[in-house]
């Protein structure tokens, strides 16, 4: 094995700082700094710095961009780790190279979701303490979900860790500044057949444990809205399945985009071949189809029933204040559907087109999350309050940009210390 020879560099450009990498990290750091600055203003003035206001007489929305992105990041996290677990469960060996990317995406997205929650709280420090002391399972969101979130953050870390041991052992064979880390990570892993079998068993059961619980967790996210009888547009049984499906859509879409980037910058064209992308594309196609079906059901129900507030809300969505976002999101969904269908039918898959589809679905997913959160508050009052309005403040956009920057930063850093694509299978080393 070539990695054994002294002088050979670590795989996938680990430890080598390139100008391109520096540019990306620099940009991400600027975004993070911007976000921190915006949040510091908010922390000193109070949430008055945002565009949020009270419902009712104040005519605002009290949940806005932050909650939108809590839901979005939660969805992405679900998509990443579920895919990684399904690869194990269904033995989709072709997709194995992106397993680690999925796990990493989950860890990062969960972290971002947690930060987005804290940023949204009026008393974040109290939140950190009180949620651990008093959290109640009857409260769908900030009670259960925060607990689930910390649990799953841990679960995906364990998953990432165990799955990475073999690669760490391989990396530890090459002398490098990070050797101590690889040794620590590998924890004596020798890649003997016994160890392999044990790892396979352990990760299989991990996957078994993770998938159903994640479905529950993401449904909880849907219940946050779906259980509120007093909020037209939220109270619906489709809410939970639609949340899970859209979570899958955005997760797989983002994974395609990330995989394409990694393929270029980590020089893994051979590992992340077209067959991986074809599989992902097919999966995305299926998920988008299911989601559009659910969306159609939801819309049909909303327009068909005569309930006045419900109808007013639908009108605001279709032709009123939110029409721009609504139709844009729908157009993005349909466009990506067309792109995917065309590739599936002609059997000519192209990575750039898949990336475009992945980006489109994610933009659409963000738009759709926004449309779930906001209109029911500004246009869904059951008492005769005047219509409300919500325009996110610049600071809110800056904080969100900071969150994305943090995500990019974390993934970029990871890529420089650890192989982000699973190293290829190799013969059992004789000396281990």
């Amino acid at each position, binding site marked *: 094995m070539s990695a054994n020879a002294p002088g050979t560099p670590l795989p996938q450009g680990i430890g080598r700082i390139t100008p391109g990498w520096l540019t990306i990290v620099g940009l991400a750091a600027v975004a993070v700094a911007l976000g921190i600055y915006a949040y510091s203003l908010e922390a000193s003035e109070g949430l008055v710095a945002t565009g949020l206001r009270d419902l009712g007489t104040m005519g605002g929305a009290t949940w806005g961009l932050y909650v939108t992105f809590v839901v979005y990041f939660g969805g992405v996290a679900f998509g990443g780790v579920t895919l990684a677990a399904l690869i194990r469960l269904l033995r989709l060996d072709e997709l194995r190279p992106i397993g680690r990317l999925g796990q990493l995406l989950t860890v990062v997205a969960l972290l971002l979701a947690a930060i987005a929650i804290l940023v949204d709280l009026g008393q974040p420090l109290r939140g950190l303490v009180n949620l651990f002391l008093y959290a109640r*399972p009857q409260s769908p969101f900030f009670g259960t979900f925060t*607990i689930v979130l910390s649990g799953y953050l841990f679960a995906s870390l364990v998953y990432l860790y*165990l799955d990475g041991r073999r690669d760490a052992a391989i990396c530890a064979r090459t002398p490098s500044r990070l050797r101590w880390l690889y040794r620590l990570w590998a*924890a004596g892993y020798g890649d003997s057949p016994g160890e392999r079998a044990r790892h396979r068993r352990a990760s299989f059961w991990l996957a078994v444990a993770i998938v159903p619980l994640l479905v529950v967790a993401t449904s909880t996210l849907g219940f946050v809205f779906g259980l509120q009888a007093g909020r037209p547009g939220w109270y619906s049984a489709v809410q939970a399945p639609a949340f899970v499906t859209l979570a899958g859509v955005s997760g797989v879409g983002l994974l395609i985009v990330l995989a394409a980037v990694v393929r270029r910058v980590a020089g893994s064209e051979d590992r992340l071949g077209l067959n991986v992308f074809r599989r992902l594309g097919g999966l995305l196609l299926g998920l988008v189809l299911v989601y559009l079906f659910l969306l159609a059901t939801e819309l049909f129900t909303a327009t068909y029933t005569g309930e006045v507030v419900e109808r007013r809300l639908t009108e605001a969505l279709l032709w009123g204040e939110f029409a721009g976002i609504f139709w844009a999101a729908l157009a993005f969904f349909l466009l990506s559907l067309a792109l995917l269908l065309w590739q599936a039918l002609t059997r000519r898959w192209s990575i750039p087109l898949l990336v475009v589809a992945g980006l489109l679905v994610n933009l659409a997913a963000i738009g759709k999350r926004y449309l779930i959160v906001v209109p029911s508050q500004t246009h869904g009052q059951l008492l005769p309050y005047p219509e409300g309005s919500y325009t996110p403040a610049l600071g809110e956009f800056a904080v969100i940009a900071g969150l994305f920057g943090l995500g990019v930063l974390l993934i970029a850093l990871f890529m420089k210390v650890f192989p982000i694509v699973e190293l290829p299978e190799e013969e059992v080393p004789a000396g281990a």
Partner: protein
Amino acid sequence: MRNVLTVLMVVVGFALQAISYFALAAPWVTTGVASGEPRVVGAPVLFIAGVVLVFLAAVVYELLPEKRGR
């Protein structure tokens, strides 16, 4: 030994989750005075500890017998 410990961790972990869930609040009481207050202060920490324990079992399972193995 390793198997015993792993299974034990999983069982204890799930038990902890179940117990703490009911310690958090009686989920079937959704109205009335009792519904506001969690029953045991700090039960969420127990719940998280349960989740952590279950998943840590996988680490134990893989890492433990290195020294006594062969």
